């Protein structure tokens, strides 16, 4: 085959052509997920600490995400909720958004948009800020929110 002048044209197979973004994402994430399944960030030095916690001594809304994911991947839902309830509750929405991205790439149509009304997002924002404050108060019932 003669080479045509100019930039080479990379033609990917059909499936990969539509889904190269999620494919790259899955490729990059799979070793991280595999490491999270077998190693618990709570007692393994493999995973980075939270920079906000390191700098301020306070827990951020994301503290406990990796430990929670480890528990979730090993089937311990209650333990995961105790480490970061916001992460567990947000996962279905994240998964739905990922599916919507797949649908857009595959069929050219998004899945129906959810939580369209702005009040839902303001509610989420209030919830996250409340969670952020409450999990740093070391008093028994609400200390459950801390990671």
């Amino acid at each position, binding site marked *: 085959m003669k080479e045509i002048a100019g930039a080479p044209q990379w033609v990917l197979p059909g499936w990969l052509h539509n889904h190269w973004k999620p494919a790259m994402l899955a490729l990059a994430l799979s070793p991280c997920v595999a490491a999270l399944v077998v190693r618990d960030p709570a007692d393994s*030095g493999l995973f980075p600490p939270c920079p906000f916690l390191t700098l301020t001594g306070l827990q*951020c809304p994301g503290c406990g995400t990796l430990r929670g994911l480890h528990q979730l991947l090993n089937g311990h839902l209650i333990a995961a909720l105790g480490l970061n309830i916001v992460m567990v509750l947000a996962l279905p929405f994240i998964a739905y958004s990922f599916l919507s991205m797949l649908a857009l790439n595959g069929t050219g149509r998004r899945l*129906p*948009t959810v*939580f369209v009304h*702005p009040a839902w997002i303001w509610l989420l*924002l209030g919830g*996250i800020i409340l969670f952020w404050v409450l999990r740093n108060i070391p008093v028994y019932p609400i200390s459950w929110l801390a990671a």
Partner: protein
Amino acid sequence: MSTEQQPSDPSTRFCRDCGERVQAEAGFCSRCGRAIGEGQDRPADAAETTTGSQHQAGPPFTYNPVQTYVNNYLAQAILVTIFCCLPLGIVAIVFAAQVNGKLASGDYAGAVSTSNTAKLLCWISFGIGLAVIVLWIGVLCVGLAVAGWAGG
């Protein structure tokens, strides 16, 4: 012939999914919540565009059905928030809410501008998070090298 279903106002649109009549400036259907724009029916215009080819030579359409979906990057904002990239993720959630608010009030240009800010904030948060991870891998490698040197 029956004309009771025909809208008298040419700006009236209908939700493609549930058939609800929606305001011309609305960003989403008030009944089923679907973002307005993906194949919206405008009976008055639809009749015009199929009658001839004059629209090809005429001025470009000002009504673009695809334009009424604006990404608010909420999923990305939540991701950078829970994967601990400092409070920037929360600011991105504020902008996500503003995107939907502006869309609901018909401010398409404002929604696009806010959407771009939300996207930028998500990328900055992601970049900071990635930098922390790269730094951490560097620390691990140095730790391993020192341990290997001391042990060997």
